[in-house]
């Protein structure tokens, strides 16, 4: 059985990081960056936040590699759905 080995310190660190990048995501928009840069920054921030939550708060980083794969690999299918829908939305005359 897995134990939550690390204590408060790590959580506080992660929490501060989360706050920091939330603020980054929040102030990026009014800067008036070009669309693609703005969007990729925002998505990058979201992925970083999600990664931190999953890895530390949900403890996934410290689980067995097989467990990690069994949780993360199915999400590829979700990305396939999103990509297909966005592609359809931009190439089809609706």
């Amino acid at each position: 059985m897995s134990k939550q080995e690390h204590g408060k310190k790590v959580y506080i660190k992660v929490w501060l990081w989360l706050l920091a990048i939330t603020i980054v995501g929040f102030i990026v928009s009014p800067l008036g960056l070009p669309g693609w840069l703005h969007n990729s920054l925002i998505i990058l921030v979201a992925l970083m936040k999600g990664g931190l939550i999953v890895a530390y708060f949900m403890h996934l980083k410290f689980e067995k590699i097989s467990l990690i794969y069994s949780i993360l690999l199915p999400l590829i299918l979700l990305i396939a759905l999103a990509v297909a829908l966005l592609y359809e939305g931009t190439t089809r005359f609706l």
Partner: protein
Amino acid sequence: MNHDAVLEQKKIMESEWGGGKAPFGVSWRKYMMWIFIVSDAFTFGAFLAAYGLFRVTSEAWPNTYEVFTAFPLIPFEAPMLFVAMMTFILICSSFTMALAVSASYKNDRANALKFLGLTILGGSIFLLCQVYEWYHFIHDGASLTGNPWGTPLFSASFFMITGFHGLHVLSGLILLTITALKVKRGFYERRGSYEGVEIVGLYWHFVDLVWVFVFTFFYLL
């Protein structure tokens, strides 16, 4: 029977996948919560992918920075500030949840209860904020079938996605309350494992995680 087969059998019986063991090193309860989360991620993922299609097919998608400007008690417009605050609150509640799990594994009942309480508080504030947000949005003229800013799909997908997420927050709060009561009554202590707290924690973090993506895709992009 040859010697090799016996050796092979010995190896199998020691291995993690050889049966009678938890191959991922986690109990079935925790793994069940994990795969439930994957399944639920597909529900939200489908909503968000559909929303993505609406975004790219709609000509007039409103600028969210001009829509979500209200902040209670502030007379001037503060674009996105309220939502950012909600995000902050939910992340904080995730943080206290992690502390609650950590405390419970140290058999520190008092601290576990304290942090669970804080998590419930954070979740409740988030839910209240969402009520305010909905109230304001509806007050400004948004409904499932239309809104003053652009395509009706904008407000419809807002209500659908945040509503579905709000239901998850609500059910998370109920689960957390039950867990807190169990901790208080010493249920986990008697059982000898505080895993139940961790499993509810996983769900709560997932609710937070979904909000991160809702916040990003619906509000910021």
